[in-house]
């Protein structure tokens, strides 16, 4: 057990060093690289905390998609770097910030050290109900059975964020193509990479989605992988993003939450409550919701990375 603790301590030190450097480094581009590295280390921590579902999400979101999003922004904003450096706050501000941050850290640390023992847990309650959902993975069961409302609202949050991003388009680019376009030679190495990687990646994404019912995995993780593969193909110059005014795109984007809501409210008739599933039908209904949410999430996550429309729609 001491060996495992040594690994934990090393991991902690590594993470703290990486976070401090990400905050302190002058160059924004370097900071983004630090942040992605930090996300990768967090994935290892989630595994150490016996939360493989969270580790999968962190690996997909924290490192991959957020990294691509931030790097695109950092590249575009590079010309503002030197102007921003002149705005460095005064010594007083920095001291006050350091004191405040240290106080927050100390308060949280005291809370951590005084957590109740034995720890309260809902694990037995979740385990007791697991059989009735027909789902093997307790996290998926929580996401789609006991706390389905959260998951629905989460999908809607992703959608609303996308609407927010789109609404930041210039008037003339309204409903047009997102900025993301490739500089890559369509016969170059990147195209080759995308041609080989994307099909295998799509299989992995669907696999992660599919095993989510019984093992760690699920729609968010699978959708993130699929979104990343789509962006990869676009980045390699093999495909284009559609203009955001396309009808099929908008239909697919709202279809997932809509199916979720319909099934949820059908519970009022078929079972006793909203988001209750009739006996014996829990698993197929959960599966139906997951499958309907999948395209919504893939499209929404990829388009969030692509950003606001920048070019005019076709006339």
């Amino acid at each position, binding site marked *: 057990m001491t060996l495992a603790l040594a690994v934990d301590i*090393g991991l902690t030190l590594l993470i703290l060093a990486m976070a401090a450097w990400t905050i302190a480094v002058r160059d924004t581009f370097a900071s983004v690289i630090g942040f992605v590295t930090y996300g990768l280390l967090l994935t290892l921590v989630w595994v150490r905390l016996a939360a493989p579902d969270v580790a999968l999400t962190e690996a997909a979101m924290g490192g*991959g998609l957020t990294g691509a999003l931030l790097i*695109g922004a950092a*590249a575009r904003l590079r010309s503002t770097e030197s102007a921003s450096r002149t705005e460095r706050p005064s010594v007083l501000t920095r001291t006050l910030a350091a004191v405040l941050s240290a106080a927050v850290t100390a308060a949280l640390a005291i809370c951590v050290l005084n957590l109740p023992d034995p720890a309260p847990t809902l694990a037995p309650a979740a385990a007791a109900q697991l059989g009735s959902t027909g789902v093997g993975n307790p996290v998926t069961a929580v996401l789609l059975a006991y706390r389905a409302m959260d998951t629905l609202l989460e999908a809607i949050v992703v959608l609303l964020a996308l609407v927010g991003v789109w609404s930041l388009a210039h008037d003339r680019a309204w409903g047009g193509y997102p900025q993301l376009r490739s500089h890559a030679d369509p016969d170059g190495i*990147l195209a080759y990479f995308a041609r080989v990687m994307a099909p295998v990646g799509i299989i992995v994404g669907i696999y992660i989605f599919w095993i989510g019912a019984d093992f760690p995995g699920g729609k968010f993780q699978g959708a993130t992988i699929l979104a990343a593969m789509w962006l*990869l193909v676009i980045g390699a110059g093999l495909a284009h993003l559609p203009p955001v005014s396309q009808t099929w795109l908008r239909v697919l984007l709202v279809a997932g939450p809509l199916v979720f809501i319909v099934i949820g409210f059908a519970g009022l008739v078929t079972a006793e409550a909203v988001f209750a599933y009739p006996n014996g039908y829990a698993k197929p209904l959960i599966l139906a919701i997951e499958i309907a949410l999948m395209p919504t999430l893939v499209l929404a996550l990829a388009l969030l990375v692509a950003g606001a429309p920048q070019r005019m729609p076709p006339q």
Partner: protein
Amino acid sequence: MTMPDFLLTASAFVLVMVALGLIRILRGPEDVDRMMAAQLLGSGGIAALLLLGVATEAKAVIDVALTLALLAAFASVAFVQGISRPDGDDSKETRGE
């Protein structure tokens, strides 16, 4: 020394190696160098994760490593594109829609 202990030690060793490689992230000097250190952390992290997973017989860890391998590759490509693109502006693009 049992097999899990050996694998755990190997995992810790790889992590330490990767941590030393992170000095390159601190030093730079160019973003390319930093990216290389991040790439080393990517493959080292995957190796450490696999060793850890097999040592503790946690099957799901292999899936995590698989996801990590995919997304790390994706992020690396996004980074190189970001580096070779001065300000993200693409008006020099000649291929029309």
